[in-house]
């Protein structure tokens, strides 16, 4: 099925997605600092370049030139494997996200997507749950009590919240009937009804997913794995130089990916309001060809998807600088006694609504 032009197109898309996730993660570090500063009535980094835009570059130079440190008694192989694994899994999960609709050139149509598989959601879940190995291995290999505690916390937290997350997704699957992220996105554009984004049908599910997304990416208020005040630095206490950089970086890549997943699942992905009207207007009033009008809509949709993603990233940072950290027992209680029953209730509710033909 895959011909050479398709393969070439696909490799281009994969490369662009790879580069984009790295670029966005880089500028997330800058955005985090600026947003934190603004929320605290400061101005943030503004010395390196205009508006401090070269700050990530300066940070990278700092990270690379720092001493590479191996703690005594650490397992050297696993100590290096940990951050690599965290980074690889973070980057892998963006492969199945549909970043845009179809681009048509002549008779060839291409997807703006790394790989189109019919198990996209399972892929993301599998890869994301692998991500905890990076944290776990790194924390264990450091030969440090604090690191180990952070790693254990990360593992138990991820497992607990993955349950609720998976169950909140089941409700989405019940509506869509498919695991392919592309299919789910396309279903949210049926007949141009942008109001039929899944958020309208699944408000409770989205809330659960959002909370779990915070826990999965180890962000405040669920950042217990690193928890500076209790565990020094958590699982990356012993890390320095670019190995630490990879850990911090993988966190931002994860935020980017999880924001993309939320946009796709609940906020219509690359669909935007009045897209069909706009396309028809270009075809009828401006006498464009179908292909070029469709390509334009696709590109606009991609821009729209990225706007949604950036909004979510901003929300992640906004929350981080607003809420204090949960206590560990509170975290577990929230996960097991509130979110999971709520998710089950949501499944039942969705089933009933489908049965009675409401959604």
């Amino acid at each position, binding site marked *: 099925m895959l011909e050479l032009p398709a393969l070439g197109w696909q490799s281009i898309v994969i490369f662009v997605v790879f580069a984009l996730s790295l670029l966005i993660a880089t500028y997330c570090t800058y955005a985090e600092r600026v*947003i934190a500063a*603004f*929320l*605290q*009535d*400061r*101005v943030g980094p503004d010395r390196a370049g205009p508006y401090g835009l070269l700050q990530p570059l300066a940070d990278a130079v700092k990270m690379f030139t720092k001493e590479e440190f191996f703690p005594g008694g650490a397992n050297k192989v696993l100590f290096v494997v940990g951050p690599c694994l965290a980074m690889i899994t973070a980057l892998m999960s963006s492969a199945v996200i549909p970043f845009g609709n179809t681009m048509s050139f002549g008779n060839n149509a291409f997807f703006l997507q790394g790989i189109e598989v019919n198990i996209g959601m399972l892929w993301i879940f599998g890869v994301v749950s692998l991500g905890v190995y990076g944290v776990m291995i790194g924390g264990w290999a450091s030969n440090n009590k604090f690191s180990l505690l952070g790693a254990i916390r990360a593992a138990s937290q991820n497992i607990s919240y993955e349950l609720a997350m998976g169950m909140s997704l089941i409700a989405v699957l019940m509506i869509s009937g498919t695991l392919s992220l592309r299919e789910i996105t396309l279903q949210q554009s049926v007949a141009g009804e942008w109001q039929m984004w899944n958020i309208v049908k699944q408000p409770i599910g989205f809330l659960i997913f959002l909370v779990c997304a915070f826990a999965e990416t180890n962000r405040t208020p669920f950042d217990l794995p690193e928890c500076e005040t209790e565990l020094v630095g958590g699982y990356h206490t012993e890390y320095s130089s670019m190995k630490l950089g990879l850990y911090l970086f993988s966190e931002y890549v994860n935020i980017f990916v999880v924001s993309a997943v939320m946009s796709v699942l609940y906020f219509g992905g690359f669909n935007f309001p009045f897209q069909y009207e706009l396309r028809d207007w270009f075809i009828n009033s401006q006498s464009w060809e179908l292909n070029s009008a469709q390509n334009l809509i696709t590109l606009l949709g991609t821009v729209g998807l990225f706007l949604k993603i950036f909004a979510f990233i901003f929300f992640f940072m906004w*929350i981080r600088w*607003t*809420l204090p950290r949960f206590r560990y027992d509170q975290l577990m209680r929230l996960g097991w006694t509130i979110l999971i029953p709520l998710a089950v209730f949501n499944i039942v509710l969705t089933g009933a609504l489908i049965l009675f033909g409401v959604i």
Partner: protein
Amino acid sequence: MQLTNRAKVLEKKPMTLAERAYLPAIFQGLSITMRHFFMKKATVRYPEEVRPFSAFFRGLHVLKRDEQGRERCTACGLCAVSCPAEAITMVAGERKKGEEGLYREEKYAISYEINMLRCIFCGLCEEACPKAAIYLQADKMAPPRYERDEFIYGKDRLVEPVSPDERSVRGIQLTPEQADTLRARIV
């Protein structure tokens, strides 16, 4: 034992559903931080942006000259005595023949040093001076430096230059506009 009548019994009510759900509180917090996002920032971007000085700001010292360009200081030592931080030291010397154009009195300061790390910029030296020789400038500050000995200002950095063009560039100097607004406020 009751000391005052202001004692208050603390009532611990069970939380309402809205409080237990925690979400309204989160939205409240988010709205507060979002308000701060758009507020005016407290930061002063220092080298580009200088905070306004007070009208009677006491900055870097200057040893004045009189109308004929002679040093006013006679090394009487009253400033050193009055200095609570003991920042001022001086060595007095006798004026030689032919130096009448340089020093106003027969006695003058051969060396005059102020340690800017000790100085607390209280202005007592200015008040103590009977010759109106030492002043704390309103428009100039002692800048930060890397070495401690650079903070000991000698006569080379304290005495007022003969012509205004040779003003010392070592202190942090206000721009002419800033100095003008300051002068307008003083008058």
